């Protein structure tokens, strides 16, 4: 049985045991002199949990683990047939076996060993599926039987049900942690494998990035070079341009909206700016690549500037637009959090409104604003679609914003899009870049949090 039909089976069994459990406690309670401890629904739910909880856990674990076990068995089977294969040969044989089993390649492409291995593989898969169905269903039925024996008038079903419910909730909140652990572990594992072929110092300090790996050994330009400095420089330049656009516009509109604007203007302008935040980044990417970049290039040509059609300027400008609502809504919050008494005090001393803002409100809100800017930088560094569509692919180390540069995120996409084998240095490089990206954004977020906590003024 497939996992989904098995799952449906369990759901059916669950429904059945709900009704059955309810009946059971009814019959027991009828005419009993004592009061029952838990309401009917808890007894019924208890039976449902008995019937489904353990089998579902088993189903998930089995489905996750069995491919790994089967792979290991297949590998040892192949080892008995082929004398000391290399890692590459082994991967090819395994892939062929699975492809033949799935029917995606025909018999012309395989030899005897693979044919035998496929028969073996098929028997393993089938046995695993049979064993899984059997184990899951047996456990479910055993659960129902055990649960039925427990149901009684004074049985504390509610306590049991609530304990399980709390456990499930705890697992749910642990998934958030597991995600982080998963991210860190998967990035670190692949990165370690990447650093087995490319040294750490070459990656972090090398000036040349061209990740082309030759398909044949003797091809010209055989080994790629993985110096990531041009990518970091390109990312920084585009982020810098974005900040030049976003910080003044975002900050000034936040100031105006919270300090000067009439409620009516605020009611229109605030959702308007927030609309910018709701636009998917692929839309900004399209806007940057097909509207802003040609416009800048033609405009530059008119005044005698040569702009690349994938200039850092276009990507940076549009990224800045994307960041505006981010800065403005965060700054708006912190400016509003500055107590009115400070403004009144400044006004009482004769300061004009702008002097109050510049010399009282902004200094008080500064930690919040700095943290907003830090978060915005982290957003800009991790942003992908705008740069994939509007920035370049070639890694130029340049300080000229009119030229095309590439970024960390662009390279991750370029290295991973399309079909290539998973173990090449090229694909592993993407994970190394991802790790760098993860830690930089994490550091910026923590720094932002630290700035707020350390320098925030406590009023009242």
């Amino acid at each position: 049985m497939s996992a989904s039909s098995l799952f449906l089976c369990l759901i059916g069994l669950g429904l059945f045991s709900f009704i059955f459990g309810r009946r059971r406690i009814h019959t027991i309670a009828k005419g009993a002199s004592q009061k029952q401890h838990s309401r009917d629904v808890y007894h019924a739910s208890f039976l449902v949990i008995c019937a489904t909880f353990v089998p579902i856990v088993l189903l998930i674990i089995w489905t996750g683990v069995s491919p790994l076990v089967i792979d290991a068995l297949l590998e040892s089977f192949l080892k008995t047939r082929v004398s000391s294969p290399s890692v590459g040969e082994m991967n090819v044989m395994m892939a062929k076996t699975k492809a033949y089993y799935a029917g995606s390649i025909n018999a012309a492409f395989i030899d005897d060993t693979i044919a035998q291995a496929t028969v073996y593989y098929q028997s393993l898969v089938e046995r695993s599926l049979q064993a899984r169905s059997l184990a899951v269903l047996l456990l479910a039925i055993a659960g129902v039987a055990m649960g039925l024996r427990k149901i009684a008038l004074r049985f504390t079903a509610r306590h049991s049900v609530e304990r399980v419910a709390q456990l499930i909730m705890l697992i749910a909140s642990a998934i958030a942690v597991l995600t982080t652990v998963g991210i860190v572990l998967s990035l670190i594992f692949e990165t370690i494998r990447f650093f087995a072929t490319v040294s750490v110092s070459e990656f972090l300090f090398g000036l040349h990035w061209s990740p082309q790996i030759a398909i044949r050994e003797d091809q010209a330009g055989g080994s790629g070079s993985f110096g990531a400095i041009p990518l970091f420089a390109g990312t920084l330049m585009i982020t810098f341009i974005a900040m030049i656009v976003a910080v003044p516009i975002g900050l000034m509109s936040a100031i105006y909206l919270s300090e000067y604007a009439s409620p009516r203007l605020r009611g229109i302008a605030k959702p308007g700016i927030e609309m910018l935040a709701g636009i998917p980044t692929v839309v900004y990417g399209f806007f940057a690549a097909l509207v802003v970049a040609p416009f800048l290039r033609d405009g530059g040509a008119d005044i005698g500037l040569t702009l690349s059609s994938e200039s850092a300027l276009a990507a940076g400008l549009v990224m800045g637009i994307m960041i505006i609502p981010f800065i403005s809504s965060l700054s708006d919050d912190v400016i509003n959090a500055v107590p009115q008494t400070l403004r009144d005090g400044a006004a009482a001393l004769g300061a004009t409104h702008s002097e109050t803002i510049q010399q009282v409100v902004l200094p008080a809100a500064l930690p919040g604003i700095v943290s907003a800017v830090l978060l915005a930088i982290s957003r800009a560094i991790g942003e992908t679609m705008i740069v994939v569509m509007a920035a370049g692919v070639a890694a130029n180390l340049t300080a000229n914003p009119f030229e095309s540069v590439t970024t960390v995120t662009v390279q991750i996409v370029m290295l991973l899009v399309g079909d290539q084998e998973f173990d090449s240095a090229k694909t592993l490089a993407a994970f190394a870049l991802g790790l760098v990206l993860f830690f930089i954004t994490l550091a910026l977020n923590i720094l932002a949090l630290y700035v707020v906590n350390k320098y925030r003024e406590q009023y009242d």
Partner: protein
Amino acid sequence: MTEPSNPSARKAQLAKRYRAERRFRAYGIAAISTAGLILFFLMGSILLSSLPAFTQHYVTLDIDITERHVDTQDLANSDWRALARNALRAQFPEVSGRKEKRALGKLLSIGSSDDVRDYVTANPSSLGTSIRLPLTLSDDIDLLLKGVIDRDLPENERVVSNQDLAWLDRLLDEDRISRQFATRIFTNGDSREPELAGLRGALVGSLWTLLVTLLASFPLGVMAAIYLEEIAPKNRLTQIIEVNINNLAAVPSIVFGLLGLAVFINFFGMPRSAPLVGGLVLALMTLPRIIIPTRAAFAAIPPSIREAAMGVGASRLQVIMHHVLPLAMPGILTGTIIGLAQAAGETAPLLMIGMMAFIVDLPTDVTAKATVLPAQIYMWANNPERAFMARTSAGIVVLLSLLLMVNATAIYFRKRFEKRW
């Protein structure tokens, strides 16, 4: 600020300070109007460039549904293309020579054969008769008729040749050209031909993906929020979980794509390009975005409700399930809808797991190869044909209108059911 003693200097300084005040206000107005202008320009330019994609030009021709090209037993595999071409050639009997004939045939889209086929399949009685039917024109001719390609350009700078133009003018004079709403953009899957490319496959793919996202992230998110806000003891462990969730919300989306590739596809061997994997990746991304507003919704429920329920003997879980959760539901739903809307617009992590395949057929389940709306937009944006620019913009217009509708629903929920305590 030191006051000058001289009255006129004092006045001058005051005037200077007021000028600074006005300047500062002007900066603020300038910032807001810049943002507004940008929004206007962005929306305007996309809307404007999308307009050509919503209509399509057709040429009305007389078609002989002759037995020679139609296999009555197998309508799907009959030579409809030849029928359409012959009908066009009948209009220009003077055209001879293979090259010219082929050029003439190129005026029609490949989809014109579908027009004939669909008509005949729907009206089998038309077999053997002559019918009058509008046929789809090719994308370049269509753009020329819409004025996107300028007919006054020299011949080598426009895709349409002088010969094509002459033919087209004759058809125009005979009043055979018509413009209709382009239904194909909603009913077709992807195609290499811009005039045939539609969003249906991507829309269905998005639907499957978001279904997985919703099913995975909503229960998990709500349960996690209940645990953290209502049940968990305030200790170090919960603090770590909390910090973790806040950080997860700020992790770049592309990193989630890497996680999906390494864990779901390479470790667990799930299929590439499938809505199942895409939906799970988006679910992990959406999880913190559901947990945070859900916790806020719980925190907004006054403790008196909980105390009252406990006072009549409810257990902690009963308090939550019977009172707190129903009361917090509007807030939770609003947060979930907004989180899903964000997930619906996400592209980068889905590129990592290959959800940008060229899909003509509709995905039928969560393990079939599929693409999503934003990825479709990205793929179309990369196509060199000029007509794809309009198609891309139209895709964006569809995406933005869907997101707008979804967000409007969220705002309605909040307005309609929100309670102030």
